[in-house]
C-alpha cells in the first residue's frame, strides 16, 4: 500500500492543527484555495487552539475494517473556538458524558495502522473537558 505520501501531506493539519482563516470568517482545517463562502482566495494561516464544542455525535457499532477493534467508539462533529468544523473520533471519554454542547479538547493519538508492513497513522482525537 503506497499511501504513506498521502499521509505525510496532511501532517501539518493533523499533527499541528494548521488551518486557514478566510475573510468571510470561514475556517478550514483541510488545505483550501478558495473561500467556499465568499470566493476569496486570500486567507490567514492560523493554528487551532484545540478547544471546541460538540455539535453532534454518534457511537459507531459497525465500522470499516480498519477500525473494527475499536468498536463501539464515538465520533463527533466539533466546532472549534476559531470556527473550524472538524469530524473527530472521541477518546478518553465515557459515552454517558457525550452531549451536544459539551466542551472538548483535541489530543494527539494513533489513528490506525496501514496493515502489517505499512506505517502507523497518527492524528487528532477529541476528549471531553470536565
Amino acid at each position, binding site marked *: 500500500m503506497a499511501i504513506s505520501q*498521502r499521509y505525510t501531506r*496532511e501532517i501539518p493539519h493533523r499533527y499541528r492543527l494548521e488551518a486557514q482563516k478566510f475573510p468571510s470568517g470561514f475556517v478550514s*482545517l*483541510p488545505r483550501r484555495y478558495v473561500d*467556499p463562502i465568499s470566493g476569496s482566495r486570500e486567507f490567514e494561516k492560523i493554528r487551532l487552539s484545540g478547544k471546541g464544542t460538540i*455539535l*453532534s*455525535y*454518534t*457511537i*459507531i*457499532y*459497525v*465500522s*470499516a*475494517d*480498519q*477500525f473494527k477493534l*475499536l468498536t*463501539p*467508539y464515538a*465520533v*463527533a*462533529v*466539533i466546532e472549534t473556538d476559531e470556527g473550524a*468544523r*472538524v*469530524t*473527530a*473520533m472521541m477518546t478518553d471519554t465515557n459515552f454517558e458524558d457525550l452531549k*451536544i454542547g459539551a466542551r472538548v479538547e483535541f489530543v494527539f493519538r494513533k*489513528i490506525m495502522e496501514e496493515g502489517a508492513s505499512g506505517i502507523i*497513522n497518527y*492524528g*487528532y*482525537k477529541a476528549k471531553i473537558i470536565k
Partner: protein
Amino acid sequence: MRDVAIIGVGLTQFGENWDQSIRDLFAEAALKAMESAKIEKVDSLYVGSMSSGLYAYQEHLGSLMADYVGQIGVPAVRIESACSSGGQAVRMGFLDVASGMHDIVLVGGVEKMWDVEDGTFVLATAADQEYEVYNGVTFPGLYAMMARVYMERYGLTREELAQVPIKNHKHGVNNPYAQFPFEIDLKAVLSSSMVADPLRLLDCSPITDGAACVILCPLERAKEFTDKFVKIRAVGSASGPIAFHDHKDLTRLDAVKLAGERAYKMAGLKPEDIDFVEVHDCFSIAEILVAEELGFFDYGTAGKAIAEGQATYGGKIVINPSGGLKAKGHPVGATGVAQIVEAYLQLTGQAGKRQVSNARFGMTQNMGGSGGSCVVHILEAM
C-alpha cells in the same frame, strides 16, 4: 430544448443476486427496457455506478455495457456522483436528447455490492476520505449525527423515527422487485442491532445487487414506439459540501433544496402539484429531511407528519410507493434510475397494488453522500 419522453423501462430483481455479475445485471435491465420500448438500437448510452471499481474491480463501464447489450460503436460513458450516480445519468441522457444531439438514449444504473467484504469502506469513499473517514466515521454515522440534532431540536422520538421504515416496508410488500417485500413492526425496528447510535439496522437501507434502465427519446417521437410513455417535465441538480461537518445547519440538506427549487422552477409547479415522490431514504432520517427540503412539510414537522400517516396512501403525499431504498433495496448506482422506473410505472398505470390513483405528476429525488449532490426529476403522465 426538445421535450423528452421515457418510452421503456427495465429492472432486475433487487437483492443478493449471487448468480449475476455486474454485466449480467446491467444487460438484463437494459434488454428488458429495449424490449419494452420495442427498439434494438440506441444512439447513445449512459451508465450510472458509484463504485464498480471497488465493488466489482471493474471500471470502464460505458464500453463494457455497450459491448454486452449489442451497441458497440455508440458513445457510452459512466456517470459517477456517489449514491446519486443513477439520477445524474438520467439527467445526462435527458440533456443528450433535449439538446438534439441524439434521439434514442439508453440510461442505466447498476451496482454489484455483494462481491466485497468491506462494503462499509466502499460506501464511505463518498465522504471526505482524509477529514471524515480517516477519523472513523461511517455513512450510517453521518446520518446518525443528523438524526441526533433533529431529534433533540424538534422533539422527534425514537418511536416516531421508526415509522419511516415501517411505512416503506408496508409499501414494499406490493413491489415484486423489492429485496424485502415484507412488513416490519415497531418492536422489530427498536430491537434491531445498533449500527450508529441512534440509528439501528432497520433504519438503514440494505446492501443490494441490482440494475435499472430507461429508454429516452424526443417526446414528439414517443408514439412511434409505444402508447405507454411519460414526459420528463423537469430536472434540477445541485452540489453541496463533501464533508457533513461543513453543512452550516446539520439538519439541512442545501443541495436537495437547490435541486428541488430548480426542478419546480423548470416545471412551473409547486410541491402541492406533486402526487407522489420517490425520495432517497438511505436512512430513516434522510426521508424526513428530504421531505422538508422539497417543500412537502415545514422544517421540523416531517417526522411527526410521516408518523401520523401523511406520507402514505390517503395522506398529504405518497412518499416512496415503491418501498423506497429501505424495502426495495439500494444498489447504489442503480437507485436513481430505479426511482425513475417507479415513477414511469405509476404514471402509466402499471404499478399494480401500489398504484397511486390519478397520479399526474411524480417526483424523484436521488442524493449522493451526506448531501454532497442531489438530482430531482419531475415526470408527467401523458
